[in-house]
């Protein structure tokens, strides 16, 4: 009957030992007490002695292997040709039964509103690849994973000039997606009007003094006035969806904020429910957190209407890009000689020039009361 020689424990606190060498080979006849090999822990080397006479039937480890204390190093038999017993299986954690759908695929099913039984599995499982294939077959050209780079265009040829490819940051990817939506979906137009700066400046100054605000609230007040314009004309706060005008039930006002290299479209959600000072405070809070790059995801997505100012850079005129699924974005700029330009980019599919000018005129003066 075969006898195992096991890896001995050297140190109470070491559960594994390293096999250094075997001094015997299969077929070797060893005597009880003979050294058959060496093992070591971090701090000690130990000879392994045979507990009995016998022939080495086989080695179950090789030099440099790290083995568990108590595991079998070699088998001894009464004759050299005795079969080596099969090592009892080490109990090991049973392999996890994998779900029919990968977890990532489940996330995508949920995101796309798909049912699992609609998807043709690949190798028996519903995977990301399986869902992407389903989406492609259904006609959606968007990749389920990389949908920010929407349109299906042939890839651009690599430039001849040598260079380095730099990954886009999250904000830069967002900007690229915005510009592509503007190009590929909206039918963008632009109009502008001239207006007097003084009434707004006086109004903002008066409120700043009244409320004790640290910063001039001018732009925030104009943005709030924009939310009031929506009350007069809901189609400003809308987008075109499946051939219909989709008027949003809430006003999520997107406001461009440059913070260092990052350009954010910070979103005041439910702006239509706010009174003027609440709105100014909410936007101020977003501006502060944008400066520290601490905006939450919900505060940089879901805009339904937009306001952009380049006054800070003394720009006197600019044409904003429409954020995805918006129809109206105000362009505020620096004034000159008491006059300023107030413009707007708009989606011509749902707004016409007259409607836009009407809204801009509303914006051009603060509320009279």
């Amino acid at each position, binding site marked *: 009957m075969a006898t195992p020689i096991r890896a001995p424990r050297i140190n109470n606190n070491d559960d594994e030992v390293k096999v250094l060498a075997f001094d015997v080979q299969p077929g070797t006849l060893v005597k009880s007490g003979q050294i058959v090999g060496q093992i070591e822990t*971090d701090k000690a080397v130990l000879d392994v002695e045979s507990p009995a006479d016998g022939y080495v039937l086989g080695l179950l480890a090789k030099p440099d292997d790290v083995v568990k204390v108590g595991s079998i190093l070699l088998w001894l038999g009464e004759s050299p040709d005795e079969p080596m017993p099969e090592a009892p299986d080490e109990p090991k954690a049973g392999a996890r039964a994998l779900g029919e759908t990968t977890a990532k695929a489940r996330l995508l099913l949920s995101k796309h509103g798909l049912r699992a039984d609609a998807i043709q599995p690949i190798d028996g499982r519903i995977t990301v690849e399986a869902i992407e294939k389903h989406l492609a077959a259904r006609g959606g050209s968007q990749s389920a994973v990389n949908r920010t780079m929407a349109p299906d265009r042939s890839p651009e040829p690599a430039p001849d000039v040598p260079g380095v490819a730099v990954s886009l940051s999250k904000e830069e990817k967002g900007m690229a997606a915005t510009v592509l939506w503007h190009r590929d979906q909206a039918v963008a137009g632009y109009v502008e009007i001239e207006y007097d700066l003084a009434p707004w400046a006086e109004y903002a100054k008066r409120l700043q003094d009244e409320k004790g605000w640290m910063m001039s609230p001018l732009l925030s007040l104009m943005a709030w006035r924009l939310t009031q314009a929506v009350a007069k004309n809901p189609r400003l706060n809308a987008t075109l969806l499946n051939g219909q005008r989709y008027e949003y039930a809430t006003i999520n006002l997107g406001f461009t904020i440059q913070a260092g290299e990052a350009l954010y479209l910070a979103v005041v959600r439910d702006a239509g429910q706010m009174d003027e000072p609440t709105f100014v405070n909410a936007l101020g809070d977003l501006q502060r957190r944008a400066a520290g790059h601490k905006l939450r995801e919900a505060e940089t997505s879901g805009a339904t209407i937009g306001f952009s100012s380049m006054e800070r850079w003394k720009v006197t005129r600019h044409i904003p890009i429409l954020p995805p699924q918006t129809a109206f974005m105000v362009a505020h700029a620096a004034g000159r000689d008491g006059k300023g330009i107030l413009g707007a980019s708009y989606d011509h599919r749902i707004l016409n020039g007259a409607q836009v000018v009407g809204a801009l005129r509303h914006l051009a003066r603060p509320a009279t009361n």
Partner: protein
Amino acid sequence: MNTTTSPFDRDSLGKPVVGPDPKALFAFGHLLRETEKLILDLFSQGLVSGTTHTCLGQELCQLAVVRALNDPDDHVLSNHRNHGHFLTYSGDFTGLVAEIMGRASGVCGGFGGSQHIAYRHFHSNGVQAGMTAIGTGIALALKAKRSKGIVAIVIGDGTLGEGLLYESMNLAAVWNAPVLFVVEHNGIAQTTYTRHTIGGDIAARGQAFGLATWRVDDCDPEFIAKTTGVVEQLRANGGPGMLIIDTGRLGPHSKGDDLRPAEEREALRLRDPLRKLAENLDPAEVTAIEAANKVFLDAVESSAMASPPATFDTTPQHAFRMAVEKDFVNAAPLSANVRQALNDALGQLLAHDEAVVVLGEDLHDPYGGAFKVTAGLSSKFPDRVISTPISEAGITGAGIGLAMASKKPVIEIMFADFLTLCMDQIYNHAVKFPGMFPDTRVPLVIRTPCGGRRGYGPTHSQSPENIFVAVPGLSVVYGSHRHNPGQLLINAVERWPNPTLFLEHKLLYGEKVDPQDYEPLAGGADDLGATLFPTIRRGASDPDITLLSYGGMLPVAERAARQLEDDDELLVEIVAPALLAPLPRQSLLALLANRPRILVVEESHPHFGFGAEILATLAENGFTGKVARLGTPPAPIAAARSLESAQLPDEEAIVAAVLGMLQ
């Protein structure tokens, strides 16, 4: 400023000079008594907050040892009844009265009150026997620098019931450290006669530990001379001793709790050694002394009353000292394993900084510590790698004392489970002093192996960081093989001057030190210590799931992440802080604020601990994603491997928890 003429002279360090003659002794003893009466009077007027313990009747007992301490390195470690010791050591009467009144000009700015005072080499605290091991550690430091200074550790006879005292007496004996344990034996502990609470003989206690032991009575006409002789003898011998002083407490323990019968109090009044001194003086001299002391104390009272209530410039939000910028040899970035990295770091610390001293049980060669982290070090640095008795509280206290005496002690506790024995020294001493006393530093590092998966059972397998992260002022560092553990240890000892618990998971000792693709997070401006003990992360920047884990759970989290990536196509991020407290909130928030799902995985019990804190912080800051915690259920950890593995979270448990979050 008190301009009244002081009724006593001072030496070059400002310590009152109290002569051995009856007149000088009466003058100073009377001043102590009248100060205590003043304090009680102020108390009765509602001008003292909290509590106070006077030494009425014990004035000579309290001044006798302290007056005899004349080496600049001499230390006094006192207790709750400390006024006589402090005033004899400092002569700062206004400082004490104002401190007890909570005034700005108090000797500790109002932080300590009556019981907690630090002034030069005088320290007192409010936990019985709490200062005994600390004093022993200070004495060890004095001995190491061959100073002639000694440490007087003063306790009352009520403290003879505390176990730490005996650990300290044993340590002082084993180290032959110059400590004088002074027992002020007034026969009563608060309201309980100590004849009902002390077994055996008091002097036999000192003798049993091999301490030179003396017993004197403060009514003995030779009391002062004998006490002075004890101090001189102890200084000459250089080793430890015990002095028992029989005395009598005239007043209550604190206030209004003197329930002793009238005849007993009358006997004490007649015994009063101060009164006896006065009886042997010329009545005219007594009257003159009393008058001079009254003038002086009137001025002390006025000065203390004139001081405004203590205020903070800004209310402190933490008690940590800032990191120290200093050049020091760096640990190698890669190492064969964590054990070797820590051993190398300790070797570097001992080689390049003579202040470093390593204490713990079984550290010496050839054993080299239970987990071999100190192997080889006691041979190279025999005086600074010290195997100690099995006295976890004692060596922690000694470490505090060494740290206060400008050493950089690294204490090894054999298993983290035994940290509970050290808790009072950590919780009431190590972390309190830096927060209370601007001049006191406690750069103490306590290293200890923790964690399970070895079948060691309920008291050798725990991960107690959840308890220690809640200790204000304690830093808890828990690195891994993905951090650079040697550098973490060097930073803790050389650059982080704060009491620090340094946890090491047993299973990581054999792991290769390799950061792989982990990257350190930049610490936020408000994240104390985050640069020295960085948080690291790996994996997707737009993950489906973030595993926030640390220490011994990191390899488990890595295996789970691999499964989730391979089998479930998920993008997994792993974030592993090395500094659990103070929590690097700013950098963790910046990283995690917009993550969709975070699972905190810890080997500790997950309730009330690190995971709870970080998730609460996220919630407070508007986090809207999903969160969950995974840890060891709050039940004893079993010894049987099969039971233990069912209790500690493994990769399957992590995978299941993640999939659960995605349902």
